[in-house]
């Protein structure tokens, strides 16, 4: 599908466009964070603690007088990084496992399918939680554990696609011409499979971001990083006197996740031929 055609189809849903635009804004915010924060996120002004939202501190201040807006802006970096890295890793593993199994077939396929199924029925969140608790809640561990547990959906998608395309005529024709298997895989099979994978990956980004926030909220976040979940966790003892402390980070987090989900839905409608025309 050409880019122009894709954009035309995607544009049909206004919500999807708004979602994509919002997500892009978040990306920009996370990149340019140090330049746009009004205050340094770790700077404490104990004389200013628990200030409600004002023109100086748009989101108010927290229990140590730190500007909440700045902290939330920096939190964007964490979420975006987690989202992107986890998605990349899990999609990569998923493609490898799925394509390998489908292409090679036989016992290897059986084995990989079993592993995929097993990983799929694990209670993911709790596994990540346990692993993080044991190995230490830093960014690398987080990305690794999430990436290595969230790939089964992609693996299944890829495997199904590869299997369906494997026997198709144009693949056999290529083989007859002497084109190597790997080349066939990359040039013929994957481009078709990639659409559903893109959609699945987008939605997984949202899940990863929510997971990270939840883990930080429970105390398994990296304290040196300013994660939204961690901010909300810190606000718990003070919600009676400082309602802005949990509310604003939550609004921002929800907005990002909604934007990603809308984008994912929009991609789904644009990339997968649906009977949506009614």
């Amino acid at each position: 599908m050409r880019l122009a055609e894709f954009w035309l189809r995607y544009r049909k849903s206004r919500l999807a466009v708004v979602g994509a635009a919002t997500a892009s804004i978040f990306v920009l915010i996370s990149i340019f964070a140090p330049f746009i924060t009004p205050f340094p996120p770790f700077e404490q002004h104990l004389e200013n603690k628990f200030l409600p939202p004002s023109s100086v501190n748009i989101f108010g201040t927290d229990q140590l007088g730190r500007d909440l807006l700045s902290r939330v802006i920096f939190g964007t970096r964490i979420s975006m990084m987690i989202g992107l890295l986890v998605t990349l890793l899990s999609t990569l593993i998923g493609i490898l496992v799925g394509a390998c199994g489908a292409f090679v077939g036989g016992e290897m396929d059986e084995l990989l399918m079993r592993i995929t199924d097993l990983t799929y029925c694990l209670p993911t969140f709790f596994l990540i939680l346990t692993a993080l608790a044991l190995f230490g809640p830093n960014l690398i561990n987080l990305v690794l554990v999430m990436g290595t547990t969230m790939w089964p959906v992609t693996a299944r998608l890829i495997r199904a696609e590869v299997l369906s395309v494997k026997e198709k005529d144009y693949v056999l024709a290529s083989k007859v011409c002497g084109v190597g298997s790997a080349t066939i895989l990359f040039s013929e099979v994957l481009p078709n499979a990639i659409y559903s994978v893109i959609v699945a990956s987008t939605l997984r980004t949202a899940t990863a971001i929510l997971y990270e926030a939840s883990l930080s909220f429970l105390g398994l976040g990296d304290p040196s990083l300013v994660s939204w979940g961690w901010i909300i966790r810190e606000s718990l003892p003070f919600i009676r006197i400082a309602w802005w402390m949990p509310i604003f980070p939550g609004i921002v987090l929800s907005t990002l996740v909604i934007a990603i989900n809308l984008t994912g839905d929009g991609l789904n409608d644009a990339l997968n031929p649906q009977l949506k025309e009614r």
Partner: protein
Amino acid sequence: MLKRIIVSPAVLFFIVLLNFLLMKLAPGDPVRMFVSGTYAPPEYVEAMRHRLGLDKPLYEQFLIYISRLVQGDLGFSFVHNAAVLHLIGGRLYNTLLLTGLAFILSLVLGILLGVIASKKPYSALDNSASFSSLIVFSMPQFWVAIIFLLLFALYVPIFPPGGLISVGKTGVDYWVDFLWHLILPTFVLGLTNLATFVRLTRASMLEQLGKDYILTAWGKGCSERDVLYKHALRNALLPIVTMIGLRLPWLLYGAVLIETVFSWPGLGMLLYDAIFSRDYNIIMGIFTIISALVIVFGLITDLVYTYVDPRIAY
């Protein structure tokens, strides 16, 4: 169904193995937990290590681990000074109650709303319902809990701000009080999981409503109500039942977060405290129990499915 019965123990075994490996791979010496802070002579450390069986070969340790598990020994919590199983057992009921009620709430309401949405797909009502369920689904569950806590327990004190019961009530008052405490967390957990069932039901219903037997039903003179509920929903429920089993981990995940916000004394709070106090045995124990719950629930779901679909002969 048969496949599930065979596969489930395998999955459970895999989880136990995973747990064990995680434990072994984790940095930090278990012995240090005993001797934390104080200086211990090397012979003492050695003796400790031998007593804990840490000098045995890995597979032997694993066998010991399994045998302990089977006997219900999930380890010991030094923070609480009690057996992990005992601690979990005490809290399990509260979590199951909360999760169970929320599950029923979100399932029943979700199906109802899904059926209504499928009556006029792509209408303004349907689109706005889809959109709002997307929004609720995208919000972190702990944050929704905080909002409800702020709104309905702190600023407008209709409900208590957490806990299981207030002190000093007896008899009927006790149960009323208990319910009063139960309402808000159950509602939040149900609300945040509602969206999935609405979407699922709607999609499943739309698929059924396009089928031929619906035309036969209309041709008989069935009313719209009959067609929707007696015919379409009955068939639409089948894929829904399949999906229910997969939803439990998500519900438990939500329960853990919401319990924390509402100080509901269940597994969630236990977990929260355990993370804070680095009580690893509890964390792993909870993981094992929850995995077992998920597997059992999957089996039950399969059983229900064979009962509900007459095409499956079992």
